[in-house]
């Protein structure tokens, strides 16, 4: 464990001083933005887990009336998986130095994510139209809460995506300058896909 080793160091001893003087001041060999994103995802992971805990705490009670998920959610799930795959292909293209692949996949990934959000909004509207109001049953309330929370986070990701997309539209073609952003977007996309799959599975079975 590197962390434990670090914590055992005695910085005042001559041996340790010799080692420490070669320190580069970087704890993890990744760019700062990627480390920052990891902490951010950690924070969101706590948020999402607490929702799941609240959900599982509530679903076991007898007055929980599961709602029937509209088939549109299956379509949306396919779309958001596609979005993640496209984002990943964009990253692969960036690694291989293919700007065209990077750009087209990146743009399509964003469009797919946007389509997913529209789909989610339609699905919620269908449920409301069918009389599933949040106030009526905790299953409904949690459905909207989880769906909207996930959606808002993806929408935030789309803002970041849009900034990168605009840079490309403005003529940025240098992969080195785009790589970090695409990398961050990919990590975020995969994370949110995972969150959605957990939510969706949970809602499907209860």
């Amino acid at each position, binding site marked *: 464990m590197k962390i434990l080793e670090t914590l055992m160091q005695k910085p005042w001893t001559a041996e340790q001083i010799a080692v420490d003087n070669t320190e580069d001041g970087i704890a993890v060999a990744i760019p700062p933005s990627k480390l920052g994103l990891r*902490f951010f995802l950690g924070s969101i992971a706590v948020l999402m887990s607490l929702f799941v805990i609240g959900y599982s705490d509530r679903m076991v009670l007898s007055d929980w009336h599961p709602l029937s998920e509209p088939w549109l959610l299956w379509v949306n799930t396919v779309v958001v998986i596609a979005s993640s795959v496209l984002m990943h292909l964009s990253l692969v293209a960036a690694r291989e130095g293919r700007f065209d692949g990077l750009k087209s996949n990146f743009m399509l990934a964003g469009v797919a994510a946007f389509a997913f959000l529209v789909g989610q909004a339609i699905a919620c509207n269908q449920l409301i139209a069918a009389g599933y109001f949040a106030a009526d049953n905790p299953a409904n309330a949690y459905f909207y809460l989880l769906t909207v929370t996930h959606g808002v986070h993806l929408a935030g990701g789309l803002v970041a995506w849009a900034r990168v997309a605009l840079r490309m539209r403005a003529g940025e073609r240098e992969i080195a300058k785009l790589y970090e952003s695409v990398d961050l977007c990919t990590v975020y996309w995969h994370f949110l896909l995972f969150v959605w799959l957990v939510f969706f599975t949970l809602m499907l079975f209860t």
Partner: protein
Amino acid sequence: MAEVYVPPAEVEEMELYHAKSWITKYVFSQDAKVIAIQYSTTAIAIGLVGLVLSWMMRLQLGFPESFSFIDPSDYYQFITMHGMIMVVYLLTALFLGGFGNYLIPLMVGARDMVFPYVNMVSYWVFLIAVLVLVASFFVPGGPTGGGWTLYPPQTITSGTPGFGAGILLMMVSLALFIVGFTMGGLNYVTTILQARTRGMTLMRLPLTIWGIFTATVLALFAFPALFVAAIMTTLDATLGTSFFMPAALDQGVLNQHDGGSPLLFQHLFWFFGHPEVYIVALPAFGIVSDLLSVHARRHIFGYRMMVWAIVIIGALSFIVWAHHMYVSGMNPYFGFFFATTTLIIAVPTALKVYNWTLTLWKANIKLTLPMLFALAFIVTFVNGGITGLFLGNVVVDVPLSDTMFVVAHFHMVMGVAPLLVIFGAVYHWYPLMTGRFLHKGMGLFHFWTTFLGAYTIFLPLHYLGLLGVPRRYFEMGQTTFIPDSAQDLNAFVTVVTLMVGLAQVVFFYNVFWSARKGEPAGHNPWKAASLEWQTPEVPPGHGNFGPELPLVYRWAYDYGLPGAKDDFVPQNVPPGAEGAGGGDAKA
């Protein structure tokens, strides 16, 4: 598959952001030092509102039925807003947004935070959060009066003041605060981990940075719980969902909710709330370690133990939350687990106290103002800490919970003690920020009145709690068990509170007066070894360190190093140069 990120061999000079106009230099600034000042002034401004609120509630407690302008609704609003403002908007924001922003880049040897733009946005979101909070004072019904813990169902039922707009604005403000804080927090941890100057290992960092770092990590993982609680309460109040709201009466009328769990809110709140205590305490622990070391002219004793203690306390703080809920009606068998974890936390905390005092052993102690405040911190922290052993021990908590004992305990341990550290820190770093000392005479007056005054306020309150005087009571009224002398004591405490409050005027006057007329401090006046004092300019300029970042060759505590010319060796003095005299290493 992923290519390995190779850090540049030479530390790349960060592309520093340069302000182009007055607005971007002083208002929408991306310089951490300016953001620190913005955070601090905003936090202190809203903190003063919290202070005035405490006077109002003390007036009512000391002299009940004397002030017609305070009715029960007002009183409960005062205590609620006082608590929330002090814990979140003053202490959290000041320690992390204020001290964190100012000290992190300087102490780790960076030019600025790693994400300066995000850092700027963080402050402005915080400011909006504060404004929303202030706005809640002016909406119909006023701010929420549900207690700072905001427990449903009361906070959103009509028997509680501010159950309409007040509570909603509170929740919005908290959500904004959390968003803003997260932006700042990501900066603090990433800067500390990834942007240290060469030679600055993690174990060479001053304890201030360890405290701020761990507190920030706690905050990043604890605030989401409050966020969840705030969202769900808002939905219960507006959409009529039943996350926390059970079927119950609201002023005799059956509400439209069903099956929600008020205890779920409490679990979420305290899953945030207990780490929050350490979010305030850990930076104070770190800062006071540095104040003691510098002014005692001795290294901190047991540096590694201090770091471990911070990390262990931080980790344990996530598994003790339900000690706030021993008598909440949760499964009583949880009490065994949470009492055990809670008392285990006392061990690393006690070790920190021992190491602070052992730092004084065979030291060469200068009784400067920062040192005085650090000593006062030890006294008040130990006093407040040991009463934590009462409240953490589940069965002892039974008679004491929700009494004045609790109020006295947490004010001593996370009100008075951290505030004394903040004052000590201001006296300590003011010369760095302005190039001048704060006036010593005014400082001594401020110290003695604040320390002895605050102690006099809160010590007797413990005994009122033992007597059975509840907290959050507008007035005690007639009881069979409270002697009249308790009221005299309350009146006395109120008078002392007002005096201590007024003494703070001297402090603020000192801060303004000394900025112009204070004694010039020059370069590194306390002869400190850590990096923030080694900047070429005082106060540090934009980019902190002049043309080249300093190189670090030692830990932050080389005081009294055998063989060195001075009694301290700054971190950037290379090996072999100690004999040349530390103070001049860079200039």
